[in-house]
């Protein structure tokens, strides 16, 4: 109970201090709007909008979550307020879950902003919302833990942003979000299947457009595996680098 109280307090503190601040709310809204408009303006027909929706949702989550972790972890580490949390009588796993839950929520909300816009423009009937939500949650969790992995591997906020781009931009082009994987050069295709976003995007494609190419269970298991591995590597790195 005491541990849950600490977990809840850290989550609420992060929400108030970072996620619900006007710049973040505007970032959380403007970013998906920009992506949506960029692709929608380019699109000629209503069918295209629905086709690109999974990609826009996935990118909104990816950019939203990885950007936030750079602030909530790297910035606090730099200002030494993170030490206060490390010195609290709660386990490192619970602490890191508390620090990442806010980003996961933020990512989920980000994902549904393009859906909201699309709902005014195209018919969204026939979407399997349960699988869509599951896919969104899994992308949010893996992207957040990827952000965590990046945040604990660097010392400065700008390093975290730069390092994030090292993962984010290749994912944009290699995960089949906008260019189908089978249309990519053959030697690049294996790389696509190494990236977790490929599986999340495929889940969304399946649930929104019935167009997935990977089994739903395989995608789910791969994403769970990625999430666990990234979380464990991150906590291991914290123990090694910060509790030296």
């Amino acid at each position, binding site marked *: *109970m005491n541990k849950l109280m*600490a977990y809840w*307090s850290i989550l609420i*503190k992060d929400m108030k201090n970072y996620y619900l601040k006007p710049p973040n709310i505007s970032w959380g809204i403007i970013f998906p709007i920009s992506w949506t408009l960029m692709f929608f303006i380019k699109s000629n027909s209503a069918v295209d909008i629905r086709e690109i929706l999974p990609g826009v949702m996935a990118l909104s989550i990816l950019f939203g979550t990885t950007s936030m972790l750079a602030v909530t972890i790297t910035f606090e580490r730099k*200002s030494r*307020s993170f*030490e206060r949390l490390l*010195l609290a009588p*709660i386990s490192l796993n619970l602490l890191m879950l508390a620090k990442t839950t806010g980003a996961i929520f933020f990512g989920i909300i980000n994902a549904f902003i393009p859906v909201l816009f699309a709902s005014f423009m195209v018919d969204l009937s026939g979407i399997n919302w349960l699988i869509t939500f599951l896919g969104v949650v899994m992308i949010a969790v893996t992207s957040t833990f990827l952000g965590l992995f990046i945040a604990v591997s660097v010392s400065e906020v700008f390093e975290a942003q730069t390092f994030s781009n090292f993962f984010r931009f290749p994912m944009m082009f290699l995960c089949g979000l906008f260019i189908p994987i089978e249309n990519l050069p053959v030697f690049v295709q294996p790389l696509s299947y190494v990236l977790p976003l490929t599986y999340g995007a495929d889940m969304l494609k399946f649930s929104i457009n019935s167009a997935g190419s990977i089994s739903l269970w395989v995608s789910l298991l791969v994403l769970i595996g990625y999430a666990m591995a990234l979380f464990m590597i991150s906590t291991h790195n914290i123990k090694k680098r910060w509790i030296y």
Partner: protein
Amino acid sequence: MDRFKKKFCSFQIIKGGKSLNIIEVKNLAKSFDDFKAVKGISFSVEKGEVFGFLGPNGAGKTTTINMLTGLAKPSSGEIMISGHDGIKDIKKVQHVIGIVPDESNLYDEMSGFDNLVFCASLYGMKKEAREKRAKELLEQFSWDDTGNRPFKAYSKGMKRKLTIAAGIIHDPEILFLDEPTTGIDVESARQIRRMIKELNDNGTTIFLTTHYIEEAERLCHRIGFIVGGKVIKVSGVHELMNEAQQENVVEFRTDSNGIELKKQLVSVFPNISIKSSTNHSIRITSKEPIELMPFMKFFEYEGIKISETKIIRPSLEEVFVKITGIEIDKLKKEKEGKKK
């Protein structure tokens, strides 16, 4: 009630003449690759005392504190804190300790009150209890705005006091204070020293590092000196002073010329030596205890008026210099430079 118990318990320990070690450190070592930051140190801290941990920069003070509080893993050695294994059960240890780092590290955007309430929640305190305790602490520090300003809007001194308040919000048995008064105004420093004294009077054991030697002299019961990763001396403040006093020194302020008086005194008292003499004062030293009466009679006989007689004792600063070989001014400059 808890604070009463703590006070009562520490009183019993003193009354019974027995000491109970609340911190026990044995052969504690820490290496970073080939560099040995802490080299197998052993010391103990008694329950209810203020223990000063002094040493020059890079001596291993912060590494030791980090190992005691769980922010660093020892390479070898043992730590027992309040009956818990400080290495295996660090989370249990963290329940009973409070930590005030050398930098005020609360959250800039949050108000003073919210910061305190948040810190209390990390220790599992319930909402009502943590809000009540936060208000109590704000009152104790005489905050006129009940801590409503964001942390970043406070002065350095107020930030420091608030950081200390955050360290004691859960009423810890042991409080680790790392340079609590460095770089803050005189009044805030006085208030913090008063607060440390009050906390200790209420039974909290204090582990203090400071480079203000006079602060350590005023607050600490015992002091450990660490140099080059080794604890080279642990002793009570009075014992340290007495050990350092290799000769007895008395200074007289007179109305006559001290330089001429020097010749007369040496001829009458052959066992003494005179270290320094100015126009109106003379300082005598002796290996043996100095009896004042013969001197007073001599001055009366000679018609010399004495306006002041002072027994000169060594300061902790001198003891520090002697033990560590570090000049205090250099230590302060290094530390202030590091803070900036």
